[in-house]
Every structure is written in structure tokens, then in C-alpha cells.
């Protein structure tokens, strides 16, 4: 009889996941929306919608548009705020026996630090993912994610205010993502996650108007997978901390591609909209792949790409 493959991975500072599959921030709400459709305890981790200190209403509509094999969004980080999350969502969310990772963002370095400090005392939060890569807000977000010294400063501020694992979520809208990754590693990040969306645009030639109210938006979905793979491969070869890969993952094979190039874990984003059970379908697919290929531990497969 075959033993079940070991899908467990560790993401820095002792954050152990039962499998390498997480939901990506902004595509999985606060997790509970999916509980009618799947067993949340089967996920490696749940990364919730980006939280700010105060509730935020986001951008005016139109906010999304479908593109070939993808979509553009300019939601603008609409969220209920950190206090409402702690009071209304976390108590139930933490009963699912799956680590909850809070994605956080601020308009200033101080705001990032303040949210980190606020969540540090919440035992239901397993780690913080620091969003320095949202392309759709005027202040904060990607402003911090495209400059190595700014990225360093934000992550350092968060690091100094929490004992929890810190993951920096990086933007692909840079010349060298490796440079940013090294900067946040130096600032004390325990892991990096990449890629956030690629800046893009859609226009209507009949109305001669941009489709999105924000004019530009972030491209996600299968269309961006090759970009994500390349950046994860480059980054995993250049930093000493674990890399969490995302960008266009909608099947177990996509996930395995990211693991192969060096991602220690992966996140599923836009696919959750199309197939709400995508995360657990991917866990099952990875398990089946390991069984079929006699891979005893997924950690043996991670980063095993041969390029020569």
C-alpha cells in the first residue's frame, strides 16, 4: 500500500503548513464566504483581503474587466478595517484549524507598523503578509514596493512591531524584483510572496474612454503565469528566505510548476472566482502527482528544476 505523500512545508519562523496551497489576498474575501462550498481546514493557509487601519471604501466603479485569459482589477483595497476583522471575522475563522495570514497595507510606514502591532496580540493570526505592491491606490501600496530602500523601511517597521512571521508581497512592476526581495530579506522578512498583479489598461474605442474608473488596473489570471514563474525562479535563486509563488495558478500543474522553480508554497488567486473549490482541487492534484511519481515529500520536489 502506498503511503500518503508528505505535503507539509515551512515558511520561515516556524510557520508550518499542512500543504503548500494558500488562498491569495483579495480573491478569497475573509475566508468565510467560501465555507458553504469547501472545507477551509483543507487549505495550507488562508490569506485574507488586505486590511487597513480604518475601513476603506475602495475605488468607484467600473472596477473590473475581463481580458484574454485574465482580468484587470482596480478595487482599490476596499476592506472592513483591522478592528472589524478582529471582532467579526477572526473568531470564526480561527476555528478552522488552518493558519490565517493577515494581509496588511498602510498609506504610511507608521500605519503599516501600527497594524502589525495591533495584530501581534491576536493569537488567531498566524502571520502577516505586508502588501507593498497594490497598484490601485494612490498612497502606499506599490509606492513602497518599487523602491528598495522604501520597501526595506516598511518591512523593518513591521518587523519591529511583531513577533509573527512577516511575508513581504512584492510587485512585478519593477526592473529587478531580486533587488527588492533582497532589501526586504535584509529588513527581516521571513518570506516573500510574488507576484502581485501587473499594471495594465483597457480602453473602449467606441466611447473613447478607459474601461476602468481608475484608468489603469492590475492584470491577474492565467495570462500572467509565465511572468510569475520567471520572477519566482530568479528570486528563489537569489535570496535565502522562502519564496511563495503566485500569478495565474488555476490547476495543480500550474502550482507544481511554481514549486519546481523554487517556490516553497503557492497562492491561488483569480482562479477562486472561476472555480471556488480551486484551492482544494489543487491540493488533491498535487497529492495525486506525488503519489503517481513516487515523491514522498513535496519538499524534495521544490526547487528541483534542472536547467543544464
Amino acid at each position, binding site marked *: 500500500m502506498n503511503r500518503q505523500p508528505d505535503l507539509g512545508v515551512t515558511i520561515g519562523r516556524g510557520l508550518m503548513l499542512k500543504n503548500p496551497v494558500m488562498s491569495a489576498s483579495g*480573491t*478569497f*474575501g475573509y475566508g468565510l*464566504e*467560501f465555507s*458553504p*462550498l469547501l472545507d477551509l481546514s483543507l487549505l495550507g493557509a488562508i490569506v485574507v*483581503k488586505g486590511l487597513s487601519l480604518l475601513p476603506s*471604501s*475602495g*475605488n*468607484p*466603479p*467600473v*472596477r*473590473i*474587466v*475581463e481580458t*484574454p*485569459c*485574465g*482580468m484587470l*482589477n482596480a*478595487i482599490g483595497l*476596499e476592506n472592513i478595517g483591522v478592528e472589524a476583522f478582529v471582532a467579526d471575522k477572526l473568531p470564526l475563522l480561527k476555528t478552522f484549524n488552518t493558519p490565517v495570514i493577515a494581509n496588511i497595507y498602510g498609506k504610511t510606514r507608521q500605519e503599516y507598523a501600527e497594524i502589525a502591532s495591533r495584530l501581534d496580540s491576536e493569537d488567531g493570526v498566524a502571520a502577516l503578509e505586508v502588501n507593498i505592491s497594490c497598484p490601485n491606490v494612490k498612497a502606499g501600496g506599490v509606492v513602497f514596493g518599487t523602491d528598495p530602500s522604501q520597501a526595506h523601511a516598511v518591512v523593518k517597521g513591521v518587523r519591529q512591531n511583531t513577533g509573527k512571521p512577516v511575508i513581504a508581497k512584492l510587485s512585478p512592476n519593477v526592473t529587478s524584483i531580486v533587488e527588492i526581495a533582497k532589501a526586504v530579506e535584509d529588513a527581516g522578512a521571513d518570506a516573500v510572496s510574488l507576484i502581485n498583479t501587473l499594471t495594465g489598461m483597457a480602453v473602449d474605442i467606441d466611447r473613447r474612454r478607459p474601461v476602468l474608473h481608475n484608468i489603469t488596473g492590475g492584470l491577474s*489570471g*492565467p495570462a500572467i503565469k509565465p511572468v510569475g514563474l520567471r520572477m519566482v525562479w530568479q528570486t528563489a535563486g537569489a535570496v535565502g528566505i522562502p519564496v511563495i509563488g503566485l500569478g495565474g495558478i*488555476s490547476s495543480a500543474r500550474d502550482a507544481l510548476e511554481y514549486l519546481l522553480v523554487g517556490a516553497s508554497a503557492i497562492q491561488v488567486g*483569480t482562479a*477562486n*472566482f*472561476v*472555480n*471556488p*473549490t480551486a484551492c482544494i482541487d489543487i491540493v488533491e492534484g498535487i497529492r495525486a502527482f506525488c503519489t503517481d511519481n513516487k515523491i514522498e515529500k513535496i519538499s524534495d520536489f521544490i526547487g528541483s528544476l534542472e536547467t543544464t
Partner: protein
Amino acid sequence: MSYFQQPAKIIEKTFVGPDTFLLDLLCPDIAASARPGQFVMARVDEGLSPLLRRPFSIHNTIDKSLVRLLVKIVGQGTRILSGLPTGHSLSLLGPLGHGFEIPQNLKNACLVAGGIGVAPLFFLGKALAAKGVSCKVLVGGQRAADLLCIREFEELGFEVLLATQDGSAGDKGMVTDLLADILEANSCQQVYACGPQAMLKVVGVMARNAKAPCQVSLETVMACGMGVCLGCAVKSVSGKILHACKDGPVVDADLLWD
């Protein structure tokens, strides 16, 4: 709130116009719990393009096992759907959203449909008929071929009034002109409307001026249908953002327009 994702087999497809068809889908969990005004998200293709599901109002449910959609071909997704054969299964997510509210002791109501906006109103009409609510149904469109479900509403015992912009059926003009007469006669306790955004706004403002409560069913672009993508934002009068998928698709017109 409870919703399901299940494969739905196409039991029957019937064209009711050159670009409009009825689709009967076998999906008992969704059919049994659906309420008027709710919708489903259909995955018309398992491939990567088109990537996203498409939202469709529930037009009717039959024997708690079939969900009936009334679909107009408007783009790539609906065109693919129109070509799927009987027996094919597609993934359906639903029932989703906040549907129509039927106030206690409602005696009479007016249903206003613009074009394919008639889709959710028939399911509502059936519920209203079952409660003994007397309804007038106003159906409008560009031309006679756009007017749908007339016979079905008549079979519910409702009075059906028609308007077309080219005058090829009913009154020549807008469906909202018909509503003006009804509101003036003060003969309607509740207005329900679905159709193009511009029509809904006119209906909403007219109803407000006549002090008649009005519920409108909104159509927006959306990716998930279950409140997580936040793409279906609609700005309310107060500035508060509403999400068509969860706060709607049916909302009080007063929330949207002064």
C-alpha cells in the same frame, strides 16, 4: 446564506427569438433553494478564455429540480452558451444574491421590464401570483421581437401592457410612459423593475415622486458573484458602496437615486 456549486445538465434549450433562448438546467440543490431575484454564475467554458463565469438571473424554477434561464446573446459568453448541446453539463454556482422582497399584505404591484430585463421578473410574478397579488406587467423594448414572456404573464392572470420604441407592438414610446399612467392612477403599492440602467433610473425616480416603493434588479460586471472580488461595486446616494452580488442584485431604488 447557502449556495452550491454543482454541475448542471442542459435538459432543454428553446430559442424564443433570433438571439434569445430559454435554458433548462438540472441542478436540484440550486433550484430547490432559489428565490425570485436571485442569480447563478455559469461557467460557459472549462478553458481559460473566456475566463470568468457569467451571471444570469433565475427566470424560473421547475419542480425544485430545474433552473430556467432566459438568455440573450450579447457577447462571447452568451454566444458559447447558446451553442452548447442538450445533455452537456456546465458548472453552476448559486443561488446567489439578495432577491425581491414581497411586503406583507401586498395587494397589487407593477412589474416593469425593459428587454431582457424580463428575465428575473417572471420568477417574481409567479411568486406574486401564488400570494394572490394583482399585477400589471409593463413590457418594453426597441421592437416587437424584443418583447418576451407576454403570454406567460397573461397565464398568471396579470394584465400585460406593451411599449416599443418603433411602435411595432403596443404603444409607441418608452415603457416608462406606461408606468406614468399607472402611478398617476395611484393603483400600485409596489414597483418592481429590471432593465437597462437608464430605464431603472427613470423608473426609480418616477416611483419615488409618486411615493411608491420600488425595487430594481441591477446588472453589473462581476467576477465571483459571492462577495469576494468586490468588482460589482455600485455607488449609493449616501456614498456607501453597494455590491450588486450581495447587497443586490435587487435593491431599493431609493438607495441609488435621489
